């Protein structure tokens, strides 16, 4: 008895601590806020179909990875917070033509025109100049900027276009510096590029020639000599993998795989906020009504079930933060549905307890039998829910469906723990020690004999 009570107190403290974590991590600036899906936060969801028909099957994987990198770099230029760029390859049941997809999510962006234009554009390799004097002046003033982003903006403004760009590169390859053994990227220019490059290097000895990929400087070497043979070397502090990526990006001047837009979804922010508020309200009201029902019908065990349900809710919210689960409107619906289902196991157990009491067992025995005998039907029925959830998760065609399925499956598993383990511990802890009329009334349920 005392052992059960000590454990129950420990459990409640533990649950309260998790509850505090859920609460505190929702304060502004905290580390683990809920991750809201696009339909709740507002934003744009784009699906591109990648045309891989011209690629050998061995190259598809690399090309898709390269496509992802290029598009991600472009998306980052928008300054969107937490954009998502992912490729989906040969998903189950896709037809051949749509087997390779590129999925882009831009939270908070509802004007997609600009985004779509620049995502589909070809990546740009540019060579831009800064004179040695300007660079020195900038470095001298580098402490006078208000923020690093101001400083970066001012830095980028220094560079002047030269007219030399990626269309004049005929080939890029990876090389190794003979003395340091560092990987470097070798460039060969076309004849037009060779002449221009020769002229630029001749006129700018001592100046800096910045090499820009999609608007970002990746290497800013000093021009030491005129280079007339149409070959250049980009020596940054590359790792081999970075050098390989750069070579790949340069060789595929355009996107490595042609893409076409097949789905656009834009959700305005007001709609998302309404869905969040509605979901929270529905969750609270559903919890309260179920709690009232449980306490009226199931009395003392009903009260225990309410606490178990509260523990369930807290655990689920904490899991949403820690896994993390991206919450969508459908996911919230799944969670509210699971609140209704989480008490099912409790109901099966309590009804069984009542039956055992009616057969003349004492309270303690009836509780033990109730938990033990209800177990097979709880297990079997929850397995059927898990089968459904798993099929939905693996064959769900949209993120809406998979979001629902994930919440649903996690909910079923967690509810088995709270409805059985947690409520058993709590019920043992508060159970009346003697079988009296009052204690039998408290443990029993329903209205007729």
């Amino acid at each position: 008895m005392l052992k059960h009570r000590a454990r129950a107190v420990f459990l409640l403290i533990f649950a309260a601590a998790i509850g505090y974590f859920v609460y505190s991590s929702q304060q502004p600036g905290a580390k683990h806020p809920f991750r809201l899906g696009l339909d709740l936060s507002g934003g744009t969801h784009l699906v591109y179909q990648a045309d891989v028909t011209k690629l050998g099957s061995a190259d598809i994987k690399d090309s898709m990875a390269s496509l992802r990198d290029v598009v991600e770099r472009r998306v980052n230029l928008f300054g969107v917070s937490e954009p998502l760029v992912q490729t989906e390859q040969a998903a189950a049941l896709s037809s051949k033509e749509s087997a390779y997809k590129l999925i882009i999510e831009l939270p908070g962006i509802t004007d997609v025109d600009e985004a779509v234009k620049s995502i589909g554009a070809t990546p740009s390799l540019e060579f831009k100049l800064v004179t040695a004097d300007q660079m020195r002046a900038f470095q001298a003033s580098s402490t006078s900027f208000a923020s690093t982003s101001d400083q970066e903006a001012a830095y980028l403004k220094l560079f002047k276009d030269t007219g030399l760009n990626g269309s004049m590169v005929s080939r890029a390859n990876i090389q190794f510096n003979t003395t340091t053994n560092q990987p470097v990227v070798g460039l060969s220019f076309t004849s037009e590029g060779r002449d221009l490059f020769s002229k630029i290097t001749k006129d700018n000895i001592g100046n800096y020639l910045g090499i820009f990929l999609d608007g970002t400087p990746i290497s800013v070497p000093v021009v030491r000599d005129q280079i007339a043979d149409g070959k250049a070397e980009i020596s940054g502090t590359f790792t081999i993998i970075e050098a390989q990526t750069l070579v790949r990006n340069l060789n595929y001047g355009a996107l490595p795989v042609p893409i076409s837009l097949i789905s656009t979804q834009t959700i305005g922010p007001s709609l998302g906020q309404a869905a969040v508020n509605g979901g929270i309200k529905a969750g609270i009201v559903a919890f309260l009504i179920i709690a009232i029902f449980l306490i009226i019908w199931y009395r003392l065990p009903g009260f225990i079930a309410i606490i178990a349900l509260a523990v369930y809710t807290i655990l689920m919210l904490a899991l949403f933060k820690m896994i993390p689960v991206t919450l969508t409107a459908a996911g919230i619906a799944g969670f509210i549905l699971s609140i209704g289902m989480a008490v099912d196991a409790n109901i099966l157990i309590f009804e069984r307890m009542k039956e055992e009491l009616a057969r003349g067992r004492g309270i303690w025995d009836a509780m033990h039998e109730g938990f033990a005998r209800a177990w097979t039907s709880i297990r079997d029925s929850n397995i059927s829910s898990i089968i459904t959830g798993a099929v939905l998760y693996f064959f769900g065609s949209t993120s809406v469906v998979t979001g629902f399925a994930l919440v649903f499956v996690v909910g079923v598993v967690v509810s088995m723990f709270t409805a059985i383990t947690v409520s058993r511990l709590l019920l043992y802890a508060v159970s009346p020690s003697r079988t009296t009329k009052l204690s039998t009334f408290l443990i029993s349920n329903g209205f007729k004999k």
Partner: protein
Amino acid sequence: MDSKNNTMWVVKYRKLFYSISGILIVASFVSLAVWGLKPGIDFTGGTLIDVQYPNGRPDQTILSASLTTIDPSSSVRASGADEYIIRLKPVDQAQKAVIMSALSLNGTASTTVKTFDSIGPVLGAEALRKAFVSIFLVLIGIVLFITFAFRKVSEPVSSWKYGLTAVIALAHDVIIPAGVFSILGHFAGYEVDTLFVTALLVILGFSVHDTIVVFDRVRENLRHASANKPFAEVVGESVGQTFIRSINTSLTTLIALAVLYIFGGSTTEHFSLTLLIGIAVGTYSSIFIGSPLLVTIEKWSRKK
């Protein structure tokens, strides 16, 4: 409720319950055959725009006329106090600008686009294929699981028949909501989308819960029953013993769903409605159809 005396009525009046379900199923099939289901853009591909007119919306006919030049099959439906929901063929970015100008009646009305969904037909066909495969897999998964779970019960009804019975009850639970949505689709323009299919699958998973609870009790009672006790009596008793818990487990779920339907917002409104209908019907079928069917099947196999 006293479980000893009036437990047999569910089994005894089973023909009445079969008839009620039979009528509902036939009505659902007729509605599905005549009107069908109205597929959403998830499945067909297309464009759905929810546009708000903060300064009062223009007349529906004016907007329709403005849109027919772009897509003759476009449709406009009023929503809320100042919104329209517009349905069109799939569009690309270039056409989007044309549509936006048509929606604002060439810039004369101010508009706020609340949602803009455009789904290509390739993606739609994929979603449809996945929907059918999912339903099929869930059904197979559940039959196999029940057959496995009840593998030790072979007398007097073999375990695969429990699985089969569960599936008949499940088909019942899915056909009726589909019929209701076919009627709602015809009269109120309700569309079925991937969330609708998700709801059907959840109904499958949930209504088998209650069926399993009853079957589990039949399984247990058979173990303890004397050999000459009629099967119908064992089933009747089992139904009576589990009656309240079947109702109560569904009741808590229905409470959650009803609250979700009322407060949950427009995104999940149809989803929770589908679930409400399906789970209510599912509770009915697991009490009044599933277990009595076991008795019927047992009677048939004895006659042979």
